[in-house]
């Protein structure tokens, strides 16, 4: 029961402080689950994110279900996911009910401009940490660069990139494994 409560509060926090899409949840995920609780490693988080990207639905939701279920089975998955959504439901309901001109409020816009700068820095430093812990050889660097450039410069779907990278990893290890 205690672990379920921790799962709920952790993912509630993540839902409350994720600005700008699923990947922005990463820095808080890393701090809460990898560094503070030691419930997952960087590598496991990356596995979950890659798989969450390929399964249907919102990435953040998929990742939450994945991590919750790894810790506490189906109940854990459901708890983490509901916790992630709860702040959204509350905040959006309040905005929809009372602030029709919400995005026009000057102070709100300014606050979000500041938050976006912070999100940039948080994501960059998360990427540096993850790169160090999970990109281990020149094949890894190659896949990282290819995915980054194709994502930035083309309109290709991330799902296709994930599938190709998985196939590439499989082939590299399969062929390389024989030599060992």
């Amino acid at each position, binding site marked *: 029961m205690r672990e379920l409560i921790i799962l709920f509060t952790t993912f509630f926090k993540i839902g409350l*402080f994720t600005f700008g899409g699923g990947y922005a949840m990463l820095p808080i995920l890393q701090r809460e689950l990898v560094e503070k609780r030691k419930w997952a490693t960087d590598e496991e988080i*990356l596995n979950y*994110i890659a798989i969450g990207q390929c*399964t249907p639905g*919102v990435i953040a939701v998929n990742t939450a279900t994945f991590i919750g279920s790894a810790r506490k089975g189906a109940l854990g998955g459901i708890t983490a996911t509901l916790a992630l959504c709860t*702040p959204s439901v509350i905040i959006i309901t309040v*905005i929809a009910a009372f602030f029709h001109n919400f995005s026009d409020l000057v102070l709100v816009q300014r606050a979000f401009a*500041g938050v976006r700068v912070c999100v940039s820095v948080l994501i960059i430093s998360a990427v540096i940490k993850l790169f160090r812990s999970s990109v281990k050889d020149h094949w890894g660097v190659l896949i990282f660069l290819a995915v980054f450039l194709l994502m930035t410069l083309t309109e290709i779907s991330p799902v296709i990139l994930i599938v190709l990278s998985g196939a590439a990893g499989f082939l590299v290890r399969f062929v390389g*494994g024989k030599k060992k």
Partner: protein
Amino acid sequence: MILLRLFGAFFMVGLMSIGGGLATLPFLYDLGARTGWFNAGDVLDMLAISESTPGAIGVNMATFAGYTVSGVPGGIAATLGLITPSIIIVLIVARLLNKFMESSAIQNTLYGLRPASVGLIAAAGWSVVSTTILNVNLFMETKALVNLVDFKAVILAVILFFVMRFTKLHPIILLLASAAAGMIFSFGS
């Protein structure tokens, strides 16, 4: 029963959209056109607010659309509809993965997936950087180098970077402090 219809409609959105919150957009347009619940302009308004409020964009959109159709119960029904397929599918995948985790085929595939994940996150990071700390669009239009960098934002970014490096402050504190800095210094203008 409108709540059941909302649940069902967003269940389909959750089931069909692969690749994150923005992938739900085309399905929302389609849903609005078929049901008359909201129009394309409404969807854009919802997107603007969903992107600038906390939480996963897809979840925010579902809550918003559901609320528009049928108030608070509508928002909850739509959100539950959206996440239900995710929960079912991910729980099945997680179970299969646990079973075969030790297999070398899965391990080899994950060996390729992890750097790809880092690449995707880096690309998401770049898309935020290119519009906040840098202003790539304005630079492309004016070709003036002075327009490329938002100096106030760079100063905040550098400060944040050093604070993160040398302290163990929680990211949430940094986010709140940056929101306050934004209100005072007005970045990007």
